[in-house]
């Protein structure tokens, strides 16, 4: 077991280093940060002085090595755009993204399972057909369009919910939360739905098909023959057995919710990590881009690593082949 885990950890480290190298070689194509940092009145000396100061005159591998070296010591450098420590900015922005992601995940899981079970049990009903057709919207419409449509309906036309921002937030230690104020909660609704809609439809469709599969099994028929109530059959016996693949997918999708919050955050001017990243790209803020990309790749690598290890525990065959 231990050699398997060690091998996996080693592979994960390799993936991280390669991802970082690819990211760094891409930064040259994003543009020249110097141009955004100095006004139009700058002279060539100013440009060269700043370039040398930021280490941008060095070759890419040298810059990357310096970044890795400093990142390993917890130093991610200084944002070119905001002139503040990147780690400080990320800590400041993380609560917004994490709260949004958490709420979207809850929305996706709860609504996904409820609707999935409903459409499986009432598979021929009108409501089930309607939900299934409507769910196609969630899968096929791009996120920014859903966001704009929700803003148009609920903010512009009805005037019920805010179209941008987090509302009033309350500071608790280093964390800012929108869960404790009315405007904060209202501000969460639209972005959370926008961000979670795709995942919700995915989970719903998965639960439905798994549920239909299970309901065809012999033990369900025997349960019916024993005269158990429909409710016990559906929720105690059928749903439980559909959850195994669903839980795996949910785990993997949680990472995606955080990583893909970029578009939702841009549409709703949500002051989280995704918006920070978009700003960084436009300004060619290399330290912020590098830190964000590394953070997201660490997150995905860790999730995958945990899933792999869990599988190894569950399925002994994997352990054997790893030897």
């Amino acid at each position: 077991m231990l050699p398997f885990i060690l091998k996996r950890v080693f592979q994960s480290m390799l993936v991280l280093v390669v991802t970082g190298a690819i990211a760094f070689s891409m930064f040259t194509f994003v543009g020249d940060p110097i141009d955004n940092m100095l006004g139009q009145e700058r002279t060539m000396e100013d440009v060269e002085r700043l370039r040398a100061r930021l280490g941008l005159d060095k070759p890419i591998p040298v810059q990357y090595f310096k970044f890795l070296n400093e990142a390993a010591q917890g130093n991610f450098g200084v944002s070119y755009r905001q002139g503040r420590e990147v780690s400080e900015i990320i800590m400041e922005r993380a609560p917004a993204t994490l709260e949004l992601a958490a709420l979207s995940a809850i929305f996706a899981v709860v609504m996904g399972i409820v609707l999935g079970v409903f459409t499986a049990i009432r598979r021929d009903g009108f409501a089930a057909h309607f939900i299934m057709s409507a769910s196609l919207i969630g899968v096929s419409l791009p996120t920014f369009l859903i966001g704009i449509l929700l803003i148009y309906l609920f903010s512009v036309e009805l005037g019920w919910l805010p179209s941008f921002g987090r509302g009033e937030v309350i500071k608790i230690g280093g964390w800012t939360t929108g869960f404790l104020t009315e405007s904060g909660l209202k501000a969460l609704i639209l972005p959370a739905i926008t961000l979670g809609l795709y995942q919700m439809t995915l989970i719903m469709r998965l639960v439905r098909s798994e549920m239909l599969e299970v309901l065809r099994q012999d033990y369900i028929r025997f349960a019916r023959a024993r005269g158990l109530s429909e409710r016990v059959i559906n929720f105690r016996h059928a749903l439980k057995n559909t959850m195994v693949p669903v839980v795996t997918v949910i785990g993997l999708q949680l990472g995606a919710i955080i990583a893909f919050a970029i578009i939702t955050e841009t549409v709703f001017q949500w002051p989280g990590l995704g918006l920070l990243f978009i700003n960084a790209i436009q300004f060619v803020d290399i330290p912020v881009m590098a830190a964000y990309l590394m953070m997201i790749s660490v997150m995905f690598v860790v999730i995958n690593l945990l899933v792999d290890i869990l599988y190894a525990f569950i399925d002994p065959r994997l352990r054997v082949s790893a030897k």
Partner: protein
Amino acid sequence: MKKTSTFLAVAALLSSTAVVSAETLKWARAGDALTLDPHSQNEGPSHTMRHQMYEPLIIRDTSGAFVPTLATDWAPSADNPNVWVFNLREGVKFHDGADFTAEDVVFSFERAKQPNSDMKELIGSITAVRAVGDHTVEIETDGPNPILPSNLTNLFMMDKGWTEANNTVNVQDFEGGEITYATTNVNGTGAYRLVSREPDVKTVMVRNEEYWGRNDFPMEVSKIVYTPIQNAATRVAALLSGEVNFLQDMPVQDLARVDGTDGLTVKQAPQNRVIFFGMNQGADDLEADNVDGKNPLADVRVRKAMSMAINRDAIRQVVMRGQSQPAGMIAPPFVNGWTAAMDGESSTDLEGAKALMAEAGYGEGFSIRLDCPNDRYINDEPICQAAVGMLGQIGITVNLDAIPKAQHFPKITDSKTDFYMLGWGVPTYDSEYIFNFLVHGRESDIGTWNGTGFNNADVNAKIKSLASNTDLDARNADIAAIWRVVQDEQLYVPIHHQVLNWGMSDSVGIEVDPEDQPRVKYFTMK
């Protein structure tokens, strides 16, 4: 029935926070200030934020004329041509109650000349600033400087005592990530005080009841809530839904929609920015064309033909939806040196253009690459697309390369482009600024944005002499002469002057500032 009433109750509850408080200015634009330190980052949105809380000696009104602010009057010294004398306003207090005196002015100039200051280039000619009594300062320059006041309109005054007490005498080291007291706190003389600020999220200011001009200006806004909203559609939605009542950076395609909405208005004014194409006439051969051994752009007839092929009215109507003013010279209309005659010199004449092309030996045309930004100017890429079609009519096959500004501008400054789009604003309102950057031959500290390769010794010498020519009539004659060369050489192909649009609710009253610098003390609220 019961369901309906519950529904209505919830709706009423949800919408209750949307009620507008009459005196709060809820202001949004695309970007945020980068820092609050008055002498770091010489950049539009940062200056806009500072102008509410700090003040310079002089500001400009919407017509570009000087308005006395912390200085009441100023004039060149009678004794020494290198000295300007500024008389300061008396009875002005900083937000913390300290008096504003000549000592603070001397201190602020010294601070703005520090190496980390982003304002140092604008006041590079200043050699000494002296306090003469409590409310008079003398500013000495390295030679006569007739347009010195033009460079002071964004130079903010700080309190010496407050700055020293809070250890923030040095301008922040922005690139080094330094946070100082002055980057997050404000003690100015301005009409609004800082309440709270979260960078990129929200900044709140309240009216300064002790402001020296409390009774001279409307100052009807009691509280400012400033929120950057990056996405254009969300920004407009926020205005339409009433969450915001004043909007800068209006997207052109939504102007009609906003203006047509009850309770909302769009106001406009010509902006201090002109859009044009630059052509590399200096190289012996171009990399991005299909002509070997020759540079078609070196022939003035080709450059004239290109200008004649551009249909500026069509661009105005189709691409800009009426939001532009066709240009014949690369100076915005309120700049000293601009003339209506020269601004009207561009005309569309396809037959004439074709004849000029044939005369120059390019009757068969040629092909060239046009470099264009896609995120800098209003509709920049569509303008370039329109130009591609128009130039095609006189046989010039243009390959368009539209890229983000962060990649586009280095091409111009590094001479990696032969045909490019550029826009220019003139903060000093004087042609010298345009000549220094766009007409003078390229050297390390002058002509930095001149990508045309034009380098004429006579013109260079004339441009250099403008800086210290105190005879304003002679100076203006030189400016006119330099413009004549720029026009006759067709150094650039002018396209248009941008028009600036501000969206606001009907309760907000303000006229558009050509530099996109709203000053909230002038706002009225109904």
